[in-house]
């Protein structure tokens, strides 16, 4: 541990505290995004580059856009200062004390944990050469614990459907709300960055098998490209999703489940792949997942089932 770590940790805590405490909603959101970026840096420092990428792209990036967009979409009276707590002072003190106890207990608990681990993690690192992918985290995500990953993509689908049901499309609100999208800066930004983002995203997906990156990080970057296009009015919403869009949205899940179920009789286990095909299948899964994730995240932003291209 050195001074740098101590300062980073302190800064993280300060940012989180300010983010939750400032009355101004906009500042609160900005602080949260900054907090997310610093968290990404921290994770990179803590030997977790995959997660740093994911946090930057999804946690700070996608979520940041959604938060700021939501802030804009809220009517002006609700946008500014948030009401301070209506709780009586006594209860607030109680809550603060409770939180302090919680934090203290957790810190003490973490402190008491054994200094080395022996179990699934070691086993994963040892077993690594066997599966088709060389990246430990990708191996866990797509092979050892691929079941979790599969279920988690279903969560995304549910969130997308839920957002449709909330019937409060963000993109429509933004485009009707103000004219920022029409400023001349936007098309330039879009022309410059959208292709870069697309290429970066594709690279991250492809590279995920060997270096940090993967379907989620790559998908998030691809989604960012889509968001940019949407903000630049090259992409618009539509009331209903066409069949192709629907198919692409669930393609990853379908391939994942399909591969698992079709091969199950031969392999005697779900999502166990024959050695010759394992690499191919995992790549296929990863690519299709990336497409589905990117689209899902984009639709979480636009908020309506359909997408349409706008020429111009």
């Amino acid at each position, binding site marked *: 541990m050195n001074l740098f770590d101590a300062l980073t940790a302190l800064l993280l805590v300060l940012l989180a505290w300010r983010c939750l405490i400032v009355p101004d909603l906009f500042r609160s959101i900005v602080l949260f995004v900054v907090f997310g970026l610093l968290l990404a840096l921290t994770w990179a420092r803590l030997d977790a580059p995959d997660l740093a990428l994911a946090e930057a792209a999804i946690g700070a990036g996608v979520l940041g856009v959604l938060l700021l967009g939501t802030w804009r979409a809220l009517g002006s009276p609700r946008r500014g200062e948030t*009401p301070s707590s209506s709780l009586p002072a006594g209860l607030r003190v109680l809550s603060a004390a409770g939180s302090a106890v919680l934090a203290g207990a957790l810190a003490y608990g973490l402190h008491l*944990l054994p*200094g080395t*681990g022996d179990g699934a993690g070691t086993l994963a690192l040892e077993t690594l050469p066997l599966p088709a992918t060389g990246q430990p*985290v990708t191996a866990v995500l797509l092979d050892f614990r691929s079941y979790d990953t599969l279920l988690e993509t279903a*969560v995304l689908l549910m969130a997308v459907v839920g*957002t449709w049901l909330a019937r409060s499309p963000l993109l429509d609100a933004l485009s009707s709300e103000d004219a920022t999208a029409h400023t001349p800066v936007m098309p330039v930004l879009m022309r410059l960055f959208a292709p870069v983002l697309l290429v970066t995203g594709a690279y991250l997906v492809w590279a995920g098998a060997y270096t940090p990156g993967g379907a989620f990080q790559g998908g998030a970057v691809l989604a960012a490209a889509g968001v940019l296009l949407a903000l630049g009015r090259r992409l618009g919403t539509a009331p209903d999703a066409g069949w192709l869009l629907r198919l692409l949205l669930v393609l990853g899940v379908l391939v994942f489940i399909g591969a698992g179920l079709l091969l199950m009789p031969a392999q005697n286990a779900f999502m166990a792949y024959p050695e010759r095909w394992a690499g191919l299948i995992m790549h296929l899964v990863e690519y299709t997942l990336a497409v589905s994730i990117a689209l899902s995240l984009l639709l*979480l*932003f636009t908020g309506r089932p359909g997408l349409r291209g706008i020429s111009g």
Partner: protein
Amino acid sequence: MMGLDVYAIAAAVLVGLGFHGLITQPHPLKRLLAVNVVGNGVFLALIVLARRLPDGPDPIPHAMVLTGIVIAVSATAFGLALVRRQARDAEERDD
């Protein structure tokens, strides 16, 4: 013993802060942020845990965090859609 790790302490404090924010903040957007702070605290703790293996970081907590992030962001995105809808409903009621 894991010993004194500033990041572990930071993780614990983040959880506590988020909890406090969740209780005291009335605005739903703020409450969503608070829950995310709690989540990030937990994720940070997992990443700290992952460093204990001698042969490089433990991929299992990393996979857990990645899964956790996707779930948290999905849920938050949906939550934001609800926040917008609630605000719109309130506006319509005011009119």
